[in-house]
Every structure is written in structure tokens, then in C-alpha cells.
């Protein structure tokens, strides 16, 4: 399990990675981003204890598009890898 993501505090370190989560840019320190990480970025307070989320991404380092389930991760580009994290529960 990787470290929790850091939100951008303006230090702009050269080894940071900029991703987008649900439309908002976020800075993370590791090239490897996990399902748990993006879920906690999108939902800092878990909306329900047993909620699971659909996570899709595009423009990752090795992969044009894909999805993550719990326990999975993906390598991101320096800038531009975009994630959507939602609870796909409405019909």
C-alpha cells in the first residue's frame, strides 16, 4: 500500500506528478497511483462504510485508458493523467 496522496501545498517539487481527479488537479508524490488513493482524494470522508466506486482513467503512462478496482494501481504521466471516481449507483 502506497503513502497517502499529498494535496498541492505550493512547494511544486520537481518529482511530483500532477493528476486530475473528478475535474480537479491534484499533486501526488508517487508515479504509482492506487484505487484507494484516488478514492480518498475524491471522497475524503467515506460516504458509506461499504461503498465501492467505479474508477476510470485516461492518458496514463503506459495505457490510453483503463479502470481500477480495489487493490489495483496505475503508473501516471508527469502531468495529465485524468481519473473519474464515482459511485455508480443512480438509475
Amino acid at each position: 500500500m502506497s503513502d497517502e496522496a499529498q494535496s498541492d501545498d505550493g512547494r511544486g517539487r520537481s518529482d511530483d506528478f500532477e493528476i486530475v481527479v473528478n475535474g480537479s488537479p491534484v499533486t501526488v508524490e508517487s508515479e504509482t497511483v492506487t484505487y484507494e488513493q484516488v478514492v480518498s482524494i475524491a471522497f475524503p470522508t467515506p460516504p458509506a462504510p461499504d461503498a465501492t466506486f467505479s474508477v476510470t482513467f485516461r492518458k496514463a503512462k503506459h495505457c490510453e485508458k483503463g479502470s481500477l478496482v480495489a487493490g489495483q494501481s496505475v503508473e501516471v504521466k508527469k502531468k495529465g493523467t485524468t481519473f473519474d471516481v464515482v459511485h455508480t449507483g443512480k438509475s
Partner: protein
Amino acid sequence: MSSTLVSRSPDLQRLVDEGYQVEIRASQLLVHHVPYVTAARAVAYGALVSELTTEGASTSRPGTHELYFVGEIPCDQHGRELSKIINQRGPIALGGGLTASCSFSSKPVDGYPNYYAKMTSYVNMLQGDAKAIDPIVDAVNFAPLATAEDESVFRYLDSATSRARIGAISERLALTNVAIIGLGGTGSYILDLIAKTPIEHIHMFDGDRLKTHNAFRAPGAASIEELTAAPLKVDYFRDKYSPLRRNLHAHPEFIHAGNVQMLAEMNFVFLAVDTGPAKKLIMEALEADDVPFIDTGMGLYEAGGALGGILRTTASTPAYRRHIWDNNRVSFARLEDDEYDRNIQVADMNAMNAVLAVIKWKKLLGFYQDTENEHSISYTVGGNDLLNEDFRNDT
């Protein structure tokens, strides 16, 4: 009997597919709406009435080259009777309450080979002069051919399928019982699509009433009067789609432990409910009864003044169902209404989710190609990305 006869007789089916107004009445073949010219040099419409020779369940060669005409004595564009073809003069009583003014006799060298040739030949003998007066008139009007209760689930012949000649492929969709659980935005669009397929019985489950905001996420257009009446959703949709097809069953109830056994008789189930404990109950029951199903769900959010999010379509069949549990494809948690859950849904998103579900259903039944056998589908609107996962052929 008559629409079966039509579907089994290429000559009759061709008349229908090309848009002639065909009727079979009292064992006679009628073509209505045939333009002709009266003695007063006006354009009128009449009907051709022919005997109908059948062998078994389909037509055979016409028994005679003659037929009858219901209308005034037809003339050419100058008002002179078409004496070359007029044979008997009436009134002549026919079956089915019809009275002919005359009969026609125009025989090609070897007779008419089939009823398409026979009827269109006489149509052209009459309408040519009518078109000289008014070029727009035509016997072809694509009028609907009504069906009898036991003939078809549709109230009028599905000429879309027959014209495209995909009848055999469409038959794959003729399941006996299909259920839609939830007639909200996505469920109502699923109904709109599957109502047009030859499923025998469509069962709709939803305990809610139709409210004004629902109208903005449903196919068609509810009126103020309809919304004011606050009908049960299942009743509203049954009534809306009944003009097209029979066997729409309205079940004004939510699925719970006490009634979930009703789903055991279904051949396929579409789940279009908001997430909650009921969804898990339903899925476990469907799995226990070996019923295939497709679940839909969306999540939309607002960011930077625009909406983004994901539509999810998840298929499960007796041959492949572990992915839902192993990969947590479906959430069973109910999110409380808070800043995370404004319940943003938009009609086009509901429709897209429904379309993906119905396409996947048709792929499972062999109507569409299904070369990769994906069972989990997501659509991410921001990147316009369609993603497929959980492939049944995976080793």
C-alpha cells in the same frame, strides 16, 4: 392468422414492405387506397379485392387473373371508362361486407405468377391516370397492418424488421418473460427500446408515482394533465406503450424479500434501481435461480461548471457471474443525501446507460456480434471513453 400468412408469403410480405395498404378479409386479399379517376375527372381512392389461394400457411399462385373493385367505375384522365379492363358490372356483393362496382380482367400471357405481380399490375392500371391529374397521389402509403391478439405481440406488423429482412435474427429476442426493475430515468429508456423487440411479456416493477422531475428523464413527453394525475410509473408506461404492443405487465411494487420469488420465472432481468440493500437481495436471488441480468448505474458530479462522471453497465449470466463480487463491480451501499449525492441524472445519460444495457442484452442473445464477450462496460463522459472488462474468454 392473417399476419402469419403475410410473413410466410413472400409476395404478400413484399406488398406490405413496399408500403401498399394490404388487408386480408374473409379469405380475400385487399389493397386499399388505390388512386383512380372518376367520370367527373376527379381523383378518388378505391380498393382492389382478389381471391386468395393458399397452400398450407402461405399463398400459392393466384387462382384467377381477375379481381373486383370497390369504388366508382374507374376512368382515364379524360373521364372515359377504362373499358379495356372492365369486365363485370355491379353492384357485386363480396365477402366481408364489401360491395364491388365492377370486376377487372387483364390477363398477361401466362397469368400472374404471384399476388405481388397481380395486385401491383392493377394498381398501375388505375393510378397512372390519377397521377396525370395529381402527380403526388400513390397507392403506397405505408399504412399499418393491424394484427390479431394471437398473431403477434405487436399491434401492427413490424415492417422495420421485415423490410430489413432481419426477422430470423430478431426472433432470438423473443424471450417469454423479461423484467425491468425500476422505471426511473434509465429503466424507462430500457422499456422504450425493448418494447420494440418481440419479447412476449414485459414486466415492470416500481412502486413509485410519476412526478414532474421524472418527466424530464423519460422518453416521450408527459402532459401537464398526466403529471397532475400522479399515476404510478408502471401504469403510466404500460399505457404509453400499449398502443405499440401487448403484454405489458405493471407491477406497482418494489422488490423485497417477500416478493423476490416472482423474478424466478424471468428469462432476463434489467436492474435499473438506485443502489441499496435491495439490489444485493435481487442479485443473490437471480443468481440462485440462474437468471441472467444486466445492472445499470451512473455517478455524475459537477466540477468547474460542467458535469462529468461514469455510466456503468454490468452483465451477469449463469456462465459468468463471479466478476461482480470478485471485482466489486457493483456497490450495494446507499449513500445518504449529502453534498456528495445531489442525485444528478440527465436524460441523455439515462438513455446512454439504457442503450448500452440493451445492446449488451442483444449481444448475449446473439442478435449482435459479441466477439470479446465483455461483461463490464463503463462510459466516462469527460474523455468519451467506452471501456470493456471482465471478458468471459479470459483464462
